[in-house]
C-alpha cells in the first residue's frame, strides 16, 4: 500500500516533469522565431528611412557606391526558384509515384533510403560541382556566353529539393487507403487511370505540402546559388532570362554581410532584404497551408 503510493507519486512527478519539459521546448521554439523576427525588424526597418524609396526600389545594386536597388535581387531569387520548381516538381512527383505505386517492394526498400541520402550532401559540394562541371556543360550544350546562369542554379536547387519532394509525396501516396485503389480497379479503371485519377487525387494535400517544402528549401538556399548563378544584379525582362546570370537575395546577404560595417546603411539594407525574404517565404507557407486546409475540409465533407 505504502510503496504503491510513493510509486504513483514518482510516476506522476515524472509525468509532470516530462509534460512541462515538452511544453517548455515548444514555447522556446516559438519564442525564438519571434525573437528572430523582432531582431530582423530592428536591424532592417531603418533601411526604409535611410535610403530614399526610389533608390531602394530601383534596378541598380552597387552598395559600395550607394546604389541600393533591391528589385534585381528579388527578380533573381524568383527566376531561380521558379526554374527549380519547374524542374523539380514533375520529376519529384513522378519519382514518388514510381516508388509508391509501380516499383516492386524490394526496389522500393533500396530507392527510398537512397533518395533520402541525397538530402545529406552539403550544398557547398553541390555548388562546387555546379561551378566546375555543370556550368561548362550548360554553356556548351545551350551555346550560351557563360554557364554561370539562373538555369544552372535551378538545376542544382532542383536536385536539392528532390529528396524532400519525393520523400514527403511518397508518404502521402502511401497513406492513401488500399481500398481506394481496389475500388477503382474493380470499376474497370486501368492502372494508370487508378494512379492518376484516384491515388494522386486522394493524396493531393500531402503532395502539395511536399512541393511547398521543396520550393521553401530552394528559395532559402544560399551557398550553391552563390557559387553557380554568376551574381550579376540585373533585370532581364525577356524570355531568355532563365539562361542569364542573376543575383539572388540569399547570395547577396551571404557575400556581403561578412565585410559590411555594422550599423551602416548597407548593413541595414541587407537586413531589409532578409525581411523581404522572410515575407515571401511566409506567404508561400500561408498559401500552402490555406490550400491544405481547404483540401482537408473538402475531403472531410465528401467522406461524411
Amino acid at each position, binding site marked *: 500500500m505504502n510503496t504503491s503510493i510513493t510509486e504513483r507519486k514518482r510516476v506522476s512527478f515524472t509525468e509532470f516533469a516530462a509534460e512541462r519539459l515538452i511544453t517548455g521546448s515548444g514555447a522556446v521554439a516559438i519564442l525564438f522565431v519571434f525573437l528572430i523576427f523582432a531582431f530582423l525588424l530592428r536591424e532592417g526597418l531603418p533601411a526604409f528611412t535611410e535610403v530614399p524609396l526610389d533608390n531602394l526600389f530601383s534596378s541598380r545594386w552597387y552598395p559600395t557606391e550607394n*546604389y541600393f536597388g533591391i528589385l534585381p535581387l528579388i527578380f533573381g531569387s524568383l527566376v531561380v526558384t521558379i526554374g527549380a520548381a519547374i524542374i523539380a516538381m514533375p520529376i519529384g512527383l513522378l519519382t514518388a509515384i514510381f516508388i509508391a505505386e509501380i516499383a516492386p517492394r524490394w526496389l522500393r526498400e533500396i530507392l527510398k533510403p537512397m533518395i533520402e541520402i541525397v538530402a545529406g550532401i552539403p550544398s557547398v559540394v553541390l555548388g562546387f560541382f555546379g561551378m566546375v562541371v555543370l556550368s561548362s556543360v550548360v554553356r556548351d550544350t545551350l551555346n550560351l556566353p557563360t*554557364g554561370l546562369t539562373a538555369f544552372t542554379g535551378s538545376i542544382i536547387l532542383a536536385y536539392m529539393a528532390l529528396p524532400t519532394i519525393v520523400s514527403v509525396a511518397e508518404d502521402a501516396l502511401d497513406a492513401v487507403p488500399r481500398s481506394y485503389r481496389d475500388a477503382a480497379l474493380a470499376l474497370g479503371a486501368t492502372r494508370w487511370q487508378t494512379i492518376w485519377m484516384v491515388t494522386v487525387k486522394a493524396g493531393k494535400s500531402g503532395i502539395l505540402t511536399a512541393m511547398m517544402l521543396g520550393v521553401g528549401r530552394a528559395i532559402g538556399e544560399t551557398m550553391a546559388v552563390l557559387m553557380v548563378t554568376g*551574381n*550579376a544584379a540585373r533585370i532581364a525582362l525577356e524570355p531568355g532570362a532563365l539562361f542569364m546570370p542573376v543575383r539572388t537575395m540569399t547570395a547577396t546577404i551571404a*557575400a556581403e554581410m*561578412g*565585410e559590411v560595417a555594422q550599423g551602416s546603411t548597407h548593413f541595414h539594407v541587407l537586413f531589409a532584404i532578409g525581411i523581404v525574404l522572410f515575407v515571401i517565404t511566409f506567404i508561400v507557407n500561408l498559401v500552402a497551408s490555406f490550400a491544405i486546409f481547404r483540401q482537408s475540409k473538402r475531403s472531410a465533407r465528401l467522406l461524411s
Partner: protein
Amino acid sequence: MRNLCFLLLLCGLLLTACGGRASAQADAAAQKTIENTGSDTIVNLALAWAEAYQKVRPDIRVSVSGGGSGTGIAALINKTADIANASRKIKAEEQQNAEKNGVLPHEIEIARDAIGVIVNAKNPVQQLTLQQVSDIYSGKIKSWKEVGGEDRPIVLLSRESNSGTHVYFLEQVVRLGNSKDKTLFSQDTLLLPSSEGIIAEVRQNPNAIGYDGLGYITSDVTTLAIAPKDGGEYVKPSVETVNNGKYPIARPLFMYTPGEPTGDVKTYLDWILGPDGQKIVGDLGFVPLQ
C-alpha cells in the same frame, strides 16, 4: 551501483579536462602570441611568414586570420590585433576612428601585388591597352572582335564589390585613376565570391575576361600584356616590370601596427622586410620590395 560508477567516471573525465587546460595555459604563458589579421589577399603570405618565423623564433607564435582589409583595420582600432594586413591604404574615417580610440596606426609597406588581367588559353587576344580594359569592364566594348579577337561576346568576371581588389580595379582601371569619374562596372559583370571561382571560369570559358592577384593566377590561363596608354608599350606583369613601374596595374600591400612597432612585433616586421621574409614574397607569386 551503476550510477556510482558513472559518477566516478564523470569526475575522472572532468579532472583530466581541467588538468589538460592548466598545462595548455602554462604553455601559452611561456609563448608570446602576435595577433595578425586582415586582408584576404595577404592571408596566404602572412601564413607563410608566420610558419617560417616559427623556426626562427620558436618562443613567438604568430596567429593569422583573414576576413578582409576592413576587418583587419577594425580589429586594430578595437585593439584586438597587433598587426593588421591591408591591401589598401587606411581610409580617412578609419584613421579618425582609430585616433578617437587612442590608436595611432603606423603604416609599413611589406610587398607589392600586381593584378593580372586574364583570358582563356584559347582566346587569341594577347594584349590590351588600359583604356580598352576600362571600356570592356564599363560595358562599352561588348565583343572580342572589337579588340582584335574572335566574334564572341565578352563575359566580365570580377570579385565581389567589398573586396579590396575590386575597389582597386574600379578606381585605377575602370575609372583610370580619375577620382571624379563615377563610372561603375557594367551591370552584366558576374561577381564571383572567390579568386578560385574566377580562375575556374576563365579556364573553362573562351568568352571570359577576369582579373586577379598575380599570386593566384595559374599557368593554364593567359595573362594579358597591358599598355598604360594607347600606342604605348605592352607589358606583362612580373617582378621586374612592377618594380620599375612599367606594369600599370600594381599596388602596394601594407601592414598596420598601433603606433610605432616595438619589441617582438618590431623584430618580426624587421624579419619580414629582410631578405628571408622577402624571399617568401617572391615564392608566393607576389612582388618583393627592392
